[in-house]
C-alpha cells in the first residue's frame, strides 16, 4: 500500500516498517460460472500482512499519525480483527498497546491479539458498549485509540483497498463493488479512493454502484436501505459474523447516503447462509474467508440472483478477513473422521465404504 504514500496522510519522509497491502485481486472462474456472471473478482484481504485482515491497512496509517503526535500507548475498540492488527503493528513499532474487545469474542481472535504481548481489556457487553467506553477513555487518557481519536488517519488507510482494485483491473474502475459493512467506514473510503484516482486522471471517471453487505442478525444499514428510512435504526447484534456486529454504526449515515446516491443497494443474509457461503467460496475459488467474507460473498450471489448486479458487468467483492480466525463458526460442519490403519487394504476398504455411501445418498 505504501506505493500510494503520496495520497495518504503520512509525515514527510515517512519510512514504513512493514509491507502491508498489495493483496491479490482474484478473478473468479468457478463461482462466476455457477452464478452466470462474466467478470467477478475477489479483492482478497484475507491474506493481508501481518494479521490477515484489511485492518492492517488502517492501523498502518493510524500508527504513523500516533508516532507523529507523540502517543506512547495505542489501542482501539475492536470486534477482533482491528485488535489483532493494533497488537501486531504496535508490538513491532514499540508502542504500549491496550485493546478493548467484547467479552464474547471468538477465542482465535483473542489469541491472535494476546500473542503479541499487549494488554487486552474484555468488556461485558457488545461492541457498541466497548466503543462507548473507548470514546470516554479517549476523552480522559492521552492514548492514541486508532478508531477513536486517530480515526481520520485510520480511515484514510482504507482507501488503499480501493486504489489497488483499480490498479489491478488495469487502471479501470469496476461497475459494482460489494463491501461488508460493520461501522460503515470502508465502503465510503473505497468510494473516496476511486474519486481521487479519477481526479488525478489515473482512471476514467465512472459511476460505480456501491453495494453493502450485512448479516441479518446485525443489519441496521441494510435495513435502512431496504425500508428507505431517512435514518437507520440501531440494533442489538445477534450473529456469528462478529466482525460485523456493530448495531450502532458510526459511519452508517454516510454509508446509507453513498449507497443510495451510487444507485447501489444493501442486502443481508442469515447465519446459516453465511456458513454455506464460506463453504461455497472455499469450494469454488479456494478462498477461506472469515464469517464477514461469507456475508459479502453470499450477499453478492443474492444481488446477482435479484438482477441488481448485471451479468455482463464487472463486479468486485471485498473479502476483508481470514477464515482461520473464525473456525468455531464452521467447526461443527466438519467433524473429524475416524483414523484407519496404515495399510493399503484398510484404505481400499474405506474407499469402497465411502463409494457405497455415495451411491446410497
Amino acid at each position, binding site marked *: 500500500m505504501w506505493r500510494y504514500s503520496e495520497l495518504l496522510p503520512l509525515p514527510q519522509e515517512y519510512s514504513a516498517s512493514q509491507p502491508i497491502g498489495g493483496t491479490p485481486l482474484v478473478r473468479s472462474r468457478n463461482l462466476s460460472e455457477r452464478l452466470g456472471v462474466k467478470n467477478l473478482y475477489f479483492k482478497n484481504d484475507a491474506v493481508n500482512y501481518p494479521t490477515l485482515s484489511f485492518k492492517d491497512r488502517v492501523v498502518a496509517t493510524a500508527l504513523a499519525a500516533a508516532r507523529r503526535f507523540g502517543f506512547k500507548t495505542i489501542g482501539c475498540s475492536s470486534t477482533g480483527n482491528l485488535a489483532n492488527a493494533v497488537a501486531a503493528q504496535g508490538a513491532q513499532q514499540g508502542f504500549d498497546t491496550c485493546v478493548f474487545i467484547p467479552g464474547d469474542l471468538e477465542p482465535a481472535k483473542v489469541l491472535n491479539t494476546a500473542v503479541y504481548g499487549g494488554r487486552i481489556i474484555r468488556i461485558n457487553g457488545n461492541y457498541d458498549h466497548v466503543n*462507548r467506553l473507548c470514546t470516554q477513555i479517549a476523552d480522559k487518557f492521552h492514548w492514541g485509540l486508532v*478508531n477513536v481519536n486517530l*480515526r481520520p488517519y485510520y480511515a484514510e488507510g482504507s482507501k488503499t483497498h480501493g486504489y489497488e482494485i483499480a490498479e489491478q483491473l488495469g487502471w479501470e474502475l469496476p461497475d459494482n463493488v460489494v463491501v461488508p459493512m460493520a461501522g460503515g467506514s470502508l465502503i465510503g473510503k473505497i468510494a473516496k479512493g476511486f474519486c481521487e484516482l479519477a481526479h488525478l486522471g489515473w482512471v476514467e471517471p465512472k459511476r460505480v454502484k456501491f453495494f453493502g453487505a450485512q448479516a441479518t442478525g446485525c443489519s441496521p444499514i441494510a435495513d435502512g436501505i431496504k425500508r428507505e428510512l431517512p435514518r437507520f435504526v440501531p440494533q442489538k447484534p445477534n450473529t456469528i459474523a462478529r466482525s460485523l456486529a456493530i448495531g450502532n454504526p458510526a459511519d452508517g449515515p454516510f454509508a446509507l447516503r453513498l449507497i443510495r446516491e451510487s444507485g447501489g443497494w444493501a442486502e443481508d443474509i442469515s447465519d446459516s447462509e453465511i456458513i454455506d457461503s464460506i463453504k461455497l467460496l472455499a469450494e469454488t475459488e479456494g478462498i477461506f474467508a472469515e464469517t464477514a467474507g461469507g456475508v459479502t460473498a453470499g450477499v453478492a450471489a443474492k444481488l446477482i440472483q435479484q438482477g441488481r448486479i448485471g451479468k455482463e458487468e464487472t463486479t468486485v467483492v471485498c473479502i476483508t478477513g481470514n477464515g482461520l480466525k473464525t473456525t468455531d463458526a464452521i467447526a461443527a460442519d466438519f467433524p473429524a473422521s475416524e483414523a484407519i490403519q496404515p495399510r493399503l487394504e484398510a484404505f481400499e476398504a474405506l474407499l469402497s465404504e465411502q463409494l457405497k455411501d455415495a451411491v446410497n445418498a
Partner: protein
Amino acid sequence: MAITIEIPTAFRRFTDGEPRIQSAGATVADALAELTAKYPALSRHVRDEQGQIRQFLNVYLNEEDIRFLDGESSPLKDGDRVLLVPSIAGG
C-alpha cells in the same frame, strides 16, 4: 430528585468547562431541555433544525442507548446518569 448529565469534552466549552450537570428532569427529554435552557449555546449541538436529537449524538440512560428504551420519553429516577456521547465517525 438528582439526575447527573455527563458532558463530553467536545461540549464542555458550552458548559463553562463543567463535566457533569445536575438535573431534576422526569424524563430524558426534560433533562435535555433543562440542560439546554441553562446553556443555550449547547442547543444546536444537541438537536437539529427539526428538533430531533442530532444523528451523531448518542444518548444513554445509565448503560443503555435510549433508542432501546422509550427514547426521549424514558423516565428518570433518582441517581440515574444520562450520558451524551458523540459518535466518532468519518475522517
